[in-house]
């Protein structure tokens, strides 16, 4: 569940595992902007391309950061990997 708490993007697991019973996850500005682009339709590459078209960022660095974010999101089951 995504919450906006005082301007911060917070992910609160609803169906939590026991180890994350007391956990919330806070996304930084870039993380929140990427999270909001994950729509279940576009690929990671398409999201990166879209993001780079809007912000002045180095593609390589963004791709690395986005992969790391996706790993984190997968680990807390906030997203699921899909095959095409």
């Amino acid at each position: 569940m995504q919450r906006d708490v005082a301007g911060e993007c917070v992910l609160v697991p609803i169906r939590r595992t026991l180890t994350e019973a007391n956990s919330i996850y806070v996304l930084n500005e870039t993380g929140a902007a990427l999270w909001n682009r994950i729509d279940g339709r576009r690929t990671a590459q398409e999201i990166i391309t879209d993001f780079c078209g809007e912000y002045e960022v180095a593609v390589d660095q963004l791709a690395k950061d986005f992969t790391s974010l996706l790993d984190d999101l997968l680990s807390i089951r906030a997203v699921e990997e899909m095959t095409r």
Partner: protein
Amino acid sequence: MMTQDTLTPLPERFPYACQWEVTCRCNLRCVMCYTDCFNRPVAIRQELSTAEILRIMDELAEAGTLELCLTGGEPLSRPDFFNLYEHAISCGFLVTVFSNGTLITEAHADRFAALLPHRIEISLHAVTRETFEDITLGQGSYDRCLQAIRFLLDRQIPLVLKSTAMTLNHSEILAVKRYVESLGTVKFKLGEELRPELDGGTGPYQYALSEQDLVELNQQDADLQRDACRRDSVEPPPCRSGMHRFHIDAYGQLQLCSGNRRQSYDLRTGSFHTGFFEALPTFACDWKAPEEPALIRLATHHA
């Protein structure tokens, strides 16, 4: 890009945490209870309906509230308790439930396990049936409370057990603490404060321990002694209720905190946003820091 558990500092005034007394109804009649005076059908009929609670909950979620404590009375004595609880979880609140435990069945424990709370806090007044039920006035409550604790522990639900030290149970407090410690992951909290009843009655105070009894109790346990020293040695900071924390009573009245209900804002007729940001700042509290005197102020002169 993603960290666990770290929010940047909140704005000076932000509705981060809510304690919500969703009912004064209770299946027990604990002798020191401050809400039991409203545990009567006439008063219960005036409590917020399910729809009203869900609407206000949505307003809290919209405002950014993250921590929500559902208390009572006994919150599980509301027939709609799990509607409220599951809605709160689905809104993304970190939900804490204060309960006497005696209404928690195995099926309820399964529902808590399916949608985990932040924690459940249960009042464990004593380790003997006789003392426990002298306090709750509920026959069978001791066994049901211990059974609920087992149901929750079996499902590894985050649990806190707490006692209020009183004349009736002070000889068992250390045994309660040892019992809780034997459970491993469960935390123990000791309360010493008794409050007047919500209708102004002073009945609970007849069970208050003397200063000497409290000192002697704390001296018997290193943890309790440390906590007592910490409390005594530090000047309490000015009260900040209403800045990040607030209270809602069973009738939808928004207040600074559970212990200060002198002024209220009616959430049945007004919005939470207006109540929190416009009404609460005007409410009085004896423990707030005094206002800084304004060095210059606009004055209107009427001839």
